[in-house]
């Protein structure tokens, strides 16, 4: 009976396993697949990401020159990053922070012309 006793007593005297999260943030690992970013200077709006995305959360409108991602549907698999021919898609190491409203990641680029100062705009 009470075979667990040595373990719990060890826990009592040893250092606690808890990471005091908000106060003490552990730096993310090198290769973490976090929030999706599109580098507007590189994106050529080819639409490969939209085609390959398993979650179908990216829409690219070539004529209007927009690139939209629904971050709430994104599954962070990184397939789009792997397939992006222009390597404009990257994943940050952090996850997207919680929000109180629906959001989309929206990017307005020049239709058909790249490298023209498109802005990345986020709108709620």
């Amino acid at each position: 009976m009470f075979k667990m006793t040595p373990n719990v007593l060890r826990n009592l005297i040893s250092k606690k396993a808890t990471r005091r999260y908000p106060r003490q943030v552990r730096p993310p690992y090198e290769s973490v697949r976090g929030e999706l970013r599109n580098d507007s200077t590189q994106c050529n709006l080819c639409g490969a990401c939209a085609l390959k995305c398993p979650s179908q959360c990216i829409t690219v409108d070539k004529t209007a020159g927009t690139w939209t991602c629904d971050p709430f549907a994104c599954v962070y698999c990184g397939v789009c990053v792997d397939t992006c021919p222009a390597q404009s898609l990257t994943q940050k190491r952090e996850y997207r922070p919680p929000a109180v409203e629906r959001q989309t990641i929206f990017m307005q680029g020049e239709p058909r012309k790249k490298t023209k100062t498109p802005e990345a705009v986020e709108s709620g």
Partner: protein
Amino acid sequence: MILTTVYVLTGFVIGPLLGGLISGLDRILTARLQSRIGPPILQPFYDAAKLLGKEKTVVNVWQAFCAFGYLAATSMAVVLFFLRSDLLLILFIQAVGAVFLVVGALASTSPFSQVGAHRELLQILSYEPLLVLVVVGIYLETGSFKIGSVLTHPEPLLLKLPFLFVVLGYALTIKLRKSPFDLSTSHHAHQELVKGLLTDYSGPYLALTEIGHWYEIMLLLGLCALFWATHWVGMTILIVVTYFMEVLIDNVSARMNWRWMLGYVWAMGLTLSLVNLIWLYTA
């Protein structure tokens, strides 16, 4: 008269405050034994205050009645304890609280609540005789059921009633809802009965049962304290050790079922009590 008032107020006010603190310490200690940091020590008070400020929802208005009844009975028991009244009477009044809690749980038709209530009844069935026997042991040793007389007993009761102290430990474990006896409801709702007995108490009424439980903690630790009533150092050590053992046992054992509880507690408890009582008779 003034002294009486002081006692009443102490029991009524200090009782739950101390009880709440102890259950806060309990949670921290539990967390530490699990290699966690645990909540702040005032956590039980936050919980209770939050619950008091919640919307009132009931399944049946009798739950409100019973929650108040439970609180009234347990606080009364603690007050009587501070008034140095009759131990047996205090046990009876404490049982009233337990019964009210059960009746309130039975007032809901949820099977979880009902099954919890029955398990609580089985728990009462298990620990009630033990508590009475402990008190009987105290009576045999000191010649009185009155706490006043027990306190003036010249030597620590623990020396004469060691087995009965163990028996009290069984009752304490059941009463504090610690593993392996947290059958009817447990502090953490990870069991087959959801929150068992307390499933359908909610909001302020749940807060009342919490506060009632603090009184119960106080009462039971008071009973433990009687076993070393001759000196406050001994008393403190006894209580601290006992409570630590309770938390430790909670953390090193699985929850058992009521059949095992009834069989084990009665077999062990009654045997130990009998041994100790016979020893007292023959001594």
